[in-house]
């Protein structure tokens, strides 16, 4: 992916840019909103990572103007402001995701990669599959190896989210935000338990486990080892 990072904190930017490059992405960096806007106007990016508070033009204004100019590139806001109102403001400005500082880099990269996937026809896709695991959104059925698997409604949504982001790392916070719509982190390992229940339904009795734990980051649904 080609990613534009607009971040005024040089240290944080170096860290983010380096990390994203190591993950195999082409990264450009702008130090302020005006430069960021100019660079984005040249086009060709798959995702923006924009700090909300920037010198000169702030991140919200920058993205708002780009959206007004018809730029549909998915964007993720980085912000120290993490309350519900702040998130709403970020989404209203045209942001696709919102990550509160301080964040773990694994969280950032998982979200940026999820953003890149958001483009394209996945949202209207009704059938997903990884290896021999298949999901049909319309008939609300899940099969593995041809055998039907019964899932609770929430387990279905959890699996749907994992399938939509198959091959990518999905963090606990992303699951909590997208499957349960909460923006706080419970102290108990509630998500892990839900995952292990789901895992017992889709992986138990099959040779190859598909739902894997990524240590220190989250989970991924993939048939690669």
């Amino acid at each position, binding site marked *: 992916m080609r990613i534009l990072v607009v971040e005024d904190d040089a240290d944080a930017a170096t860290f983010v840019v380096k990390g994203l490059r190591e993950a195999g992405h082409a990264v450009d960096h702008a130090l302020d909103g005006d430069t960021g806007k100019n660079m984005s106007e040249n086009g060709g990016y798959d995702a923006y990572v924009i700090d909300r508070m920037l010198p000169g033009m702030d991140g919200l204004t920058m993205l708002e103007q780009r959206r007004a100019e018809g730029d549909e590139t998915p964007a993720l806001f980085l912000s120290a402001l*993490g*309350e*519900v*109102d702040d998130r*709403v403001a970020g989404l209203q400005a045209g942001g696709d995701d919102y990550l509160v500082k*301080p964040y773990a880099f694994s969280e950032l990269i998982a979200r940026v990669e999820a953003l890149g996937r958001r483009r394209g026809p996945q949202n209207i896709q009704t059938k997903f599959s990884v290896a021999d695991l298949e999901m049909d959104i319309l008939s609300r059925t899940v099969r593995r190896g041809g055998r039907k698997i019964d899932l609770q409604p*929430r387990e279905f949504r959890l699996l749907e989210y994992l399938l939509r982001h198959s091959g990518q790392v999905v963090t606990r916070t992303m699951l909590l935000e997208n499957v*349960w719509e*909460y*923006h*706080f*982190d*419970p*102290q*108990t*390992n*509630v998500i*892990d*338990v*839900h995952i292990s*229940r789901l895992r017992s339904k889709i992986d138990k009795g099959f040779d190859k486990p598909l739902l894997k734990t990524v240590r220190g980051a989250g989970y991924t649904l993939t048939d690669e080892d």
Partner: protein
Amino acid sequence: MEGDGQRRGLTRLGLIPRLLRTSAFRYTLIYTAFFVLSVLGIGYFVYASTLGQTMDRLDQELIDELTYLAEINRSAGTDGLAGLAKVNTEVSRLKVVKDGALYMVVLVGPPVRVLSSDLPNPPPEMLGAQGMFEFDYTARTVNEAGQVVFSTRPAVGRVANFIYRSSDGGQIRAIILAARDIRDIARIRQDAQTVIIRIGGLTLLLGLILGSIYSGAFLRRVDNIGRTVRAIRDGDLTRRISLSGSGDEFDTLSDNINAMLDQIERLMTGMRQVSDNIAHDLRSPLTRIKARLESALNDPSADRAAVLDQTTTDVERLLATFNALLSITRIESGEGGGTKVPVDVTAVAEELLELYEPAAQDDGFVLVGNIKPAPVVLGSRELISQAIANLLDNALKYARRSEDSAITPTIELTVAPRPDGGVLLSVMDNGPGVSEADQERILQRFVRLERSRSTAGNGLGLSLVSAIARRHNAQLSIGRGLPHEKDPQGLVAPSAYGLGVRIAFPPAVPAPKPGKTSRPAAAKSVPVGQAKA
């Protein structure tokens, strides 16, 4: 102290200019000016109309007299001066009859001859006078001691011209002046003027005095507020504005400012507590991290990966604590959580039950939902969810039992309507419970009871719940939870209870006053009942 005295001295010196600058004084001044003007106006009106009537009467008298004299004159014919002689005789008679009457008969001639006069000199005003005119004359009187006294007196007069034909065919003109001494009226007039001016002056004086008192009182109240505000600005947050007790607009204002100060003080105290607690609770883990990193730096044989791993965990926990503190502060300052919208607490509770059920089961808990249909509350779904999640986290953490316990650890999440139209939310467990002495304490930030020191947590969970409850104007209470089952061995007394946390949300719509709305309904129901009977 010296500075204070000096300032007070300056205040006293500068009091009068300050008094003049107050809006109260200016209003009083304007009001007084209007009042003085209207007093003067009324006085002048009374004076003018009363004196005017008297003067009109006098004028009429003079006109009548001159008409009468003209008739006498005419009756003698206009040839020669026979008429004038008659008039002159009549005038000397009238003078005796009428009190204060003055006359002057002048033959203009030629030759000019004063036939009779009560005045030493003809008044200059009489020449060309139209209608009644005022003049001063010198009166010659004899006082009690027999001396001749001259005095200037006011008078009003009218003149009439009589024309005669002389023997040679020319015209002879005579002027008759009929006048009245008006020294009594003039005295009354003088007195009235004095009275009006004095009343005006008195009104002005009273107005100024009243204005000073009024604006002085105004200034005192404002100064009182100002002094308190200054003291608070200088750092004494405990000061409050004293109320006069009259319940006037100043009291209302002061009351509002005091309430605001209370809120500010609470926030400041909260902030201070937070910073104290941060200093206390964050410094030790930071010190630990620093020590660990330093020793790893100095010890080449140390397992650096393990140290980094451990440090990352520590930093993450620090961040969690820090974020929790920030959330609490934001919620308490009314910043976080978005705008208030109707929230269905039953749905929120169902969702959280679903989220926590697997984790509870894994930990050997029975998680019971006791959700009854309840009205909506005004607030934030996110915050209410977070409060419930925190309470469930706490219960899972602290209501744990040892493996061999005969009691099944149970957590009950209840949502029920309240009689006042609000909603009761409670999370109860049958764990070891909290002694009454500790129940108040556990709401405070960073408070962790001794026995939970060993478990993970930052001591902020309940403070956050408490802040969320306050944000929703809800009543949070800590008390008894579920009773412990009476186990067969009788090891646990049946009177033992777990911990219960209850949050009573107020009604989303304030309950209507019973006196007002229930009356028509009651009145309506009576005829229906009668009809049925």
